[in-house]
């Protein structure tokens, strides 16, 4: 079952949430700036907003 995880772009600082399937093998890029520097913040709550962006 997919879990919603929090990610942070290390280039533009954009934090967002995305559903992640178990064993998912997906190239990630920032939805805002397209950078691949995406840090997985695990279960850390999203800063500033409740539902992410």
């Amino acid at each position, binding site marked *: 079952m997919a879990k919603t995880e929090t990610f942070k772009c*290390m*280039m533009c600082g954009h934090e967002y949430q995305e559903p992640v399937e178990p064993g998912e*093998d997906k*190239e990630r890029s920032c939805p805002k700036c397209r*950078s*691949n*520097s*995406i840090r*997985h913040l695990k279960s850390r709550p999203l800063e500033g907003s409740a539902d992410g962006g």
Partner: protein
Amino acid sequence: MEHVAGYIGNFTATIRKKARYVDPEMCNSCGECAKICPVAKPDEYQMGLSTRKAVYIPYPQAVPCSYILNMDDCLGNNPIACGKCAEVCEKECINYDDQDEVITREVGSVIVAIGLDVYDPTEMDEYGYTRFDNVITSMEFERLICAGGPTGGHFVRPSDQQRPKRIGFIQCVGSRNPEIGRPYCSNICCMNTIKDSLLLADHYPDVECTVYYQDIRAFGKSFEDMFQRSKEAGTRYVRGLPGDIAEDPETSNLTLVAENTTSGKLERREFDLVVLSVGVVPAKDMAKISSLLTLSKTSDGFFMESHPKLKPVDAPTRGVFFAGFCEAPKDIKDSVCQAGAAASRAGALLNAGKIQIEAITSMIDAEACTKCGLCAPVCPYGAIKWQKGEVAVVIEAACAGCGNCGAACKSDAITMRHFTDAQYMAQIHAILAEDSRDKVFVFACNWCSYSGADMAGISRMQYPASNRVVRTMCSARVSEEMVLEAFRCGAPVVLVSGCHYADCHYISANRQTVKRQQRLWNKLEKAGVRPERLQLEWISAAEGRKFAKVMEQMEELRRTVTEEEIKHAMKALAPKPEKPKKEKEPAAVAD
């Protein structure tokens, strides 16, 4: 294929031979068993347009041409339930107790030729495949028009068994459509429709054919000629795809509305039968074969070759070759060519009897190895043999030299030939020896990112001159220690770059790069170093523009890094001095 172990020249394949329940040696295909079988199931070969029995010959050209019994459909040998086929078989070749056989074979190479599946248009509801009887797929059309098909070659439409006079073909159903996750061209559908239109013109000259298309891709030998012949035979080609199909409930005729983009007019036409020219999709067994042979897939889901130009039939796993659709959509001619090439490659390998291994492979120092086993699971080729409590061993014939194991090893026991840790450290020290504050330190993988930098250069793209690029075979070769050392030497920004996921030349090695990067960001944060100073980018060989853009972003980032931050990182990341080990007191020696 249930399991494959080993490496090039030494594969052990475990194969499950499914029970046929009919002895192929004894069966003379008299068909008495099928005549008496009471079961009727949709015939897969006829696309479900007719039925077959539980005991049947899968298709007319099957080899061996003997019956098989599908136990999932069979009522069984219980005399009350059935058992009729065994009763009528004079040669007594039916055996209900037949079992699957597991065979083991030693093989030197493996050719993957698992074929394709056809796109199921059910999800494209606008074409009404599940709602209208007279909307069929191109595969169903093939069966209907075939002399060996369910109607014996009598071309009729499903709703009323009458011969259709007006037929509409819709191209690119399940192809070139990113919205349904199928952005690729299926390669064969255009020519298949052209062939069908010629077939109809030949057998039924009174039939009117209209083809709705985006582009007609008739690029093979004599294909353009066929296309022209089809047009001369009266087939009408409309550039534009219909958005919807409506059915007349009384006649079951179908109305298509499409914009003819050549004339700019909206056209409404009625047809007796509509054929959806369905695309192809990767075979459903791809995932299993991929995991058995450690193969990687492209973003389209087909297997990725070792090199698109220089090794188009080789898999990244040495000793494994591709033939046909599993590698990419292609027609019969190309599939036959590729099959010949794959057989030649495999034959050459077997005839040589020996192979030349890669010059760049990893080497394990048995004395330094702590037997932790961290290296084995990260190898995408399964080239490291390790058992708990034992020293890891590299199978050099299977090693492709990505260096992932070298980066994972915590005890410096693994050395990559020609790309040693010492060489990398020397490069880091030399690059950052002077004016380190003005430099962006870049690790670029050999196959994609480094070539991307080349592309930016030869295309004369402008980007800041502050970057210093160090080439690694794979981004997964970049160890945590190498990144930390760059920061210790005063690098304001470090960029690790590699191939996109679908392009990784070492199957899936760059997934380890991502994991290492996550650990490094955590470490930097813990040490009070701004983690944003470490960046990651996937840059392909064709993305010179992206390389230039990333370099500009890195330069901008570099300008934000202060002298204090650099000094703090140098201090915070400095290796902690090792605690002096307590010397053991010499044991008393008995006189």
